[in-house]
């Protein structure tokens, strides 16, 4: 532990102070922290809406809020959680911070574009928040026409503008990552020596760049239709509502892979570190990230099996949807195989990662139910779908986000989080999550439709269980907020490599200096070379 361990050395946080130094920064690490703060605010706002929804669903009758308000609640919960938390969370915070460090670069390829991406994100956020404050939007996060373009009398255009602007923030991040990975790798860092975290973000960036523009144009067309009264999607004026669904889902299904691929990247870093073993089947896991990104663009029609799409098209999309499930299954098997003959320790990141594998497996398997045509006819637009995507999004992406935040917290802040509190929070989140969303599978097959403000009496018991789980989950999410903030001040000083992990980011200081490395590192060995790292040293 040389002198640099203490926090007096110069690093990206204490190199300059003042609002200007943050708001005009071009350092990818500072931009990552700007994103961290903004998406945390959005996360708790979206979570607040979720709590209100669950409280309303305690009773069969609609007696907690008005029907109109409930519709706005689930719409805004969806919009904020998806566009303002899940999509930017891992790429914009951990990706921005770590990709240059992991490939030995001084910064991303286009630092100014990176800052512009954050500003665009904030502008989009302001538009959406104004819509939320001035009455909200009640079309569901899917904006289905003709309801969104003609019949809804809520702030659709303002929210659409917010989402449209935020889309460009994703596009800029995607361009930045692709060019950085292609052009700015350190000498010796070949494609197959890159950490799988970088592979996952490369695959995600493909979706950012090729999918988001189609969402942008479909929102522009809805806006045109609503403002100028032209009939692109409204059948009364000659349009076809299914065209909107095609354009919307062309982006929005790959968008769910935007949310899960970075999470898989985090897991592929955490499991090998705490099992002290190279990842099982590195090449296969790397290529399955790309396969998911590419196949993800061919399957959007499984959202439209009962929407009036032709049966022949349904057959094609069902077959393709099964194909996209294969790479995800391969990844789960490879992570589990990595544990074999390892030397496993159970720190908080590992608990979250193991929880991720379990819950993502359940989420992925229930996806098979929805790809099967006949079962989807029954469970489409019911709580089975809500449970499926929450298992993937909350059980998967948010769990992995917490794993990543805890795993790289010492690198980002130079301090350790309190281990026992973190393990406790992980268990509470795991229990609360399952209690919230497993009953919803049963509710779904029973036929309770989604987005229902009032429901028949026999669904009440399962809904009460789900609400109980939601309150536990809510507490589980608040605990890390408290102790992570506490650790900024009182956390133990973490050295350059508290976990004895491999990877270039663990070879520079914690927190790193502005230019990341004194001199650009030269990479000799394979990724995850855990056999050379002295693992006998008992971890912190």
């Amino acid at each position: 532990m040389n002198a640099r361990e203490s926090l007096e050395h110069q690093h990206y946080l204490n190199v300059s102070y003042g609002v200007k130094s943050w708001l005009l920064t071009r350092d990818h690490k500072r931009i990552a922290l700007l994103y961290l703060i903004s998406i945390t605010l959005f996360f708790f706002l979206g979570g607040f809406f979720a709590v209100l929804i669950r409280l309303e669903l305690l009773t069969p009758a609609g007696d907690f809020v008005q029907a109109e308000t409930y519709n706005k609640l689930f719409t805004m919960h969806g919009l904020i959680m998806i566009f303002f938390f899940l999509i930017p969370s891992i790429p914009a915070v951990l990706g921005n911070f770590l990709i240059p460090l992991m490939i030995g670069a001084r910064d991303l390829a286009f630092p100014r574009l990176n800052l512009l991406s954050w500003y665009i994100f904030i502008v989009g956020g302001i538009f959406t928040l104004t819509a939320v404050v001035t009455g909200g939007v009640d079309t569901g996060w899917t904006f289905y026409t003709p309801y969104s373009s003609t019949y809804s009398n809520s702030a659709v255009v303002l929210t659409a503008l917010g989402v449209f602007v935020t889309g460009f923030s994703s596009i800029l991040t995607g361009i930045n990552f692709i060019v950085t990975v292609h052009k700015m790798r350190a000498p010796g860092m070949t494609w197959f020596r890159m950490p799988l975290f970088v592979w996952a973000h490369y695959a995600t960036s493909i979706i950012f760049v090729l999918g988001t523009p189609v969402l942008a144009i479909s929102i522009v067309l809805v806006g045109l239709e609503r403002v100028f009264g032209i009939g692109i999607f409204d059948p009364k004026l000659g349009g076809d509502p299914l065209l909107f669904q095609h354009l919307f889902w062309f982006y929005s299904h790959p968008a769910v892979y935007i949310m899960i691929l970075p999470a898989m990247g985090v897991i592929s870093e955490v499991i090998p570190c705490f099992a002290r073993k190279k990842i099982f089947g590195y090449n296969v896991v790397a290529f399955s990230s790309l396969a998911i990104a590419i196949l993800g663009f061919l399957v959007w029609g499984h959202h439209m099996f009962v929407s009036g799409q032709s049966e022949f098209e349904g057959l094609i999309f069902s077959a393709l949807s099964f194909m996209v499930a294969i790479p995800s299954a391969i990844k789960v098997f490879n992570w589990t195989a990595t544990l074999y003959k390892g030397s496993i320790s159970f720190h908080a990141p590992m608990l979250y990662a193991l929880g991720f594998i379990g819950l993502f497996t359940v989420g992925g398997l229930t996806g098979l139910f929805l790809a099967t045509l006949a079962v989807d006819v029954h469970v489409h637009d019911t709580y089975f779908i809500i449970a499926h995507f929450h298992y993937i999004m909350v059980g998967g992406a948010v769990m992995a986000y917490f794993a990543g935040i805890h795993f790289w917290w010492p690198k980002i802040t130079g301090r350790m989080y309190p281990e026992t509190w973190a393990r406790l929070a992980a268990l509470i989140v795991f229990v609360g999550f399952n209690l919230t969303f497993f009953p919803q599978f049963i509710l779904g097959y029973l036929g309770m439709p989604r987005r229902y403000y009032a429901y028949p009496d026999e669904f009440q018991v399962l809904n009460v269980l789900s609400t109980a789980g939601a309150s536990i989950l809510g507490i589980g999410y608040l605990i890390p907020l408290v102790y992570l903030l506490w650790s900024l001040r009182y956390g133990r000083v973490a050295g350059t490599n508290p976990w004895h992990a491999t990877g270039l980011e663990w070879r520079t200081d914690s927190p790193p200096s502005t230019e990341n490395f004194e001199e650009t590192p030269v990479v000799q060995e394979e990724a995850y070379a855990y056999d050379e790292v002295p693992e006998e040293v008992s971890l912190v």
Partner: protein
Amino acid sequence: MAEKTVSAGMYLLVYLALMVLLAATVGAAYLHLGNLTVVAAVGIAIVKATLIILYFMHIRVGSRNLWVFAVVGFLWLAILLTLGMTDYLSRGWVPAPTGWEPGK
């Protein structure tokens, strides 16, 4: 990499080809091609676009992986168009009897 570049003369040649193709596409519109008009129109447009990409946008002299970046956008557009259009073209394929068989 050797800074190979496209010569000014080549630009003029490509420009003339584009003008000829413009005349061709307008001319083709006046022939009675029936539902082949769209095929002719899009075909000629693809040729013009390829010329512009290869010569004006220096892909011809660019590195191998630059070709991938140039093509991938149009490839994804093809995915959107084909899978999107199959829904509309295959609407009547699966014979769903209307429950009302007309007397012959």
